[in-house]
């Protein structure tokens, strides 16, 4: 690994060790190589020519949830996530993307056509390989052990995606664009639908992207920077053309890609850089948009809850931590469900998903996730509401493993419910 830009980033680290206190992974690994300081020094060493085995380094950098807790605790504002992602990118250039990541990301992410194909393939394989798990919702399926992912509960892919379900001509134009994101479009289209319906209550024209490209985050964290860049370019181009007033994200991870990562991925001299800055400026989270437009003030006051505090809010690392939007999600819940909302135990614990991390090391990811949901359940939470697709994906799987009565929902689903029942 060469890279002066990496050396400049790592130089900020004082090697104090503060990041050891907050690392999501450290309690599982109990080794310095898991924490930010270890990774920063590894990248620093590699950038200065002291690297050993590039594959081992790639493994070390892959072993990170990119939860950003270290970065937020760091007294020296070291950009740990950026260092890890750039390191992964540099190694991917050198070695290619690790095999386990190719399975997932191959060439499918950037183009919408490819994504639909991948979806069709995944749905077919689910029919062949998956068997139903006896849970209340009936929504859960489990990979058989032969798949090498034994015990994992994955949602059944519904027949139709959210965007696919919109009639032709609907939501093609409007001053606000809903960026629904892959997961809420294809895997949990009910969330996409709920977000769409509730945004429309603002009275603004809401439009969506047909054939929306991926936000690019999965490719970026996998180290596939060229694919991520293609996603970003297409998104920026299309969003600039559409020139909406606002772009609203039900998923915190897509949002952090647009608000932060996109700008570090595009070189400043890139012809789209200026457009990207303008696009980023207009991106906001679902909860903030609802609060700003006053949608929720139309709800009548709620009667006292029979089970106060049964609904909790989970802080998605990027949405609450990096972007500081933890308060907005809670406020939306407070308005939508009244005192049924209560602060959840361990609200800011990472769910353990970590994007590609979940695929790379499912047992560890599951251990962190199960701990997360059990702490919440023990504290009396029955419904976990949140606003990030990865967290929902992971916590539904974890709830199925530990406590199938625990529900995991997007705040939009509760808002939509509040409007339909009152």
């Amino acid at each position, binding site marked *: 690994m060469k890279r002066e830009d990496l050396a400049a980033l790592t130089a900020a680290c*004082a090697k104090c060790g*503060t990041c050891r206190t907050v690392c999501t992974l450290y309690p599982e690994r109990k080794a310095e190589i898991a924490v930010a300081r270890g990774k920063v020094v590894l990248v620093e060493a590699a950038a200065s020519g002291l690297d050993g*085995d590039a594959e081992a*380094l790639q493994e070390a950098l892959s072993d990170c949830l990119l939860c950003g807790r270290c970065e937020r605790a760091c007294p020296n504002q070291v950009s740990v996530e950026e260092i890890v992602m750039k390191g992964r990118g540099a190694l991917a250039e050198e070695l290619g993307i690790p095999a386990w990541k190719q399975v997932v990301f191959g060439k499918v992410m950037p183009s919408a056509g490819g994504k639909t194909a991948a979806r069709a393939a995944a749905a077919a394989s689910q029919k062949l390989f998956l068997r139903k798990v006896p849970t209340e919702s009936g929504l859960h399926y489990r990979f058989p052990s032969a798949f090498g992912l034994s015990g994992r509960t994955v949602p059944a892919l519904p027949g139709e995606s959210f965007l696919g379900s919109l009639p032709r001509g609907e939501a093609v134009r409007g001053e606000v664009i809903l960026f629904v994101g892959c997961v809420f479009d294809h895997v949990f289209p009910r969330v996409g639908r709920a977000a769409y319906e509730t945004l429309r209550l603002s009275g603004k024209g809401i439009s969506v992207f047909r054939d929306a490209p991926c936000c690019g985050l999965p490719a970026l964290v996998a180290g596939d920077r060229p694919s991520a860049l293609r996603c970003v370019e297409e998104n920026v181009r299309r969003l600039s053309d559409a020139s909406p007033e606002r772009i609203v994200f039900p998923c915190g991870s897509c949002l952090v890609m647009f608000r932060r990562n996109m700008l570090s991925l595009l070189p400043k001299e890139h012809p789209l850089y200026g457009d990207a800055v303008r696009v980023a400026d207009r991106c906001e989270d679902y909860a903030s948009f609802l609060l700003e437009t006053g949608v929720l003030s139309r709800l009548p006051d709620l009667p006292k809850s029979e089970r106060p505090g049964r609904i909790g809010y989970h802080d998605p690392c990027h949405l609450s931590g990096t972007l500081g939007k933890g308060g907005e999600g809670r406020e939306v819940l407070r308005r939508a469900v009244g005192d049924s909302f209560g602060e959840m135990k361990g609200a800011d614990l990472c769910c353990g998903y970590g994007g590609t991390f979940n695929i790379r090391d499912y047992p560890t990811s599951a251990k962190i996730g199960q701990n997360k949901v059990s702490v919440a359940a023990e504290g009396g939470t029955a419904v976990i509401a949140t606003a990030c697709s990865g967290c929902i994906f992971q916590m539904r799987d974890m709830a199925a493993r530990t406590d199938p009565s625990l529900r995991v929902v997007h705040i939009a689903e509760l808002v939509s419910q509040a409007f339909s029942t009152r």
Partner: protein
Amino acid sequence: MDKQALSALREVFGERLDTSREQCICYSYDATGKMFLPDAVAFPTSADEVRRTILLANERLFPVIPRGAGSGFSGGSVPVQGGLVLSMERMDRILSIDEENLVAVVEPGVVTETLKEEARKRGLFYPPDPASLKFCTIGGNIAECSGGMCAVKYGVTRDYVLGLEAVLGTGELVRTGVVTVKGVVGYDLTRMLVGSEGTLGIVTKAVLKLIPHPETIATILAFFRSNHDGSNAVVGIIGERITPCALELMDRTAIDCVRENAGLPVPAEAGCALLIEVDGPKESVSAEAERVDQACRRYGAIEVGRAADAEGRERLWTLRRSISPALRQVNPVKINEDIVVPRSRLPEMLAFLADLAYRQNIKIVNFGHAGDGNVHVNVMISGTDEDERRRADEAVAEVFRKTVALGGTISGEHGIGIAKAPFLEMEVGPLGVSVMKRLKTCFDPNGILNPGKIFVEEGMARR
């Protein structure tokens, strides 16, 4: 390290021995930022594994370097001569907390804050509170005899270690000290091991003293015009026969770093600040806080703030806490010393430091635990200017000479390690060094344990 040594170690540790370049890089540094690669890293989970390791090391003559969290400020856990790093972080169980006898028994890898919290849950108090308490380990604290904010009232790690289990450099497992409050049987081997920086033995278990948790705490922040007023107030408060549980001083250089983002308004003319805490039963705390407040005003405080609840306390502390992180804005490279002078000589020391910075044309930021005369002297340099580096080294040497001349010590809590080894003799004299070296030979005849630390030329040939 040779192949036989590694394969024998493999038998002891199995998968928990790692020789990969990546793992070795991760155990090559501590908070000083100095870097030396070990040949291997092992993660013991029992005293017996540590014992077998040291026996092997004596046979095949390789260095063994114990390491806690690597948060040390003197290079203590840096493997300057290669060898095996024994990372104690997986021996992290609290074995017992005896609420009747107020004694905790812990493994060395327990993080300091974890113990403090477990004690707190039982209404008990483990006082040592280094600023690194959220990540540093009890083993590291014992090896460095770490102190903290509350040392002025409660003392340092040494004052809470009743007994130890340790593997000596010979590979023998000893138990020292007592599990009782008193004990005078023979030489005090416990104190010998405390502060020995991993050069005499590897701590595998510690018996620690707990005390009842103080009922409440009050916090006072006072601004003064000058170091002169501030440091006189320190002497004055102590003279009042009040023992605060924190008495932190920030001089003008430190306040300047955080003036803009201290989280609270800082008077424009403030050239020194004191953060003072008193704890104890409710009634006496409010009376003492009042007396501290009065004393500050008497010594010329221009503003005094007080906090009674946790939130207000946090706000006052942000000033102190934001200094360390903000130092990088002064200059990227920090040379961090922690000298101590007798409390009454503090005004003189601070005046000397201001003059020194001026004479050497160099940036020095001073703050610290003034209540016990401990000043963190941070010489901030660019790291790219040769001449500045030379002036900084000269300045540090001058600081040490002045410290010793004032009857102080060159390290209050960070230890000697490699960073201060050249100055050891300046303080303890040739005879002191010689006695220490003779003691070292008793504990570790083959120089296995943490070679190259404390003493300048000490060490063993690498195989």
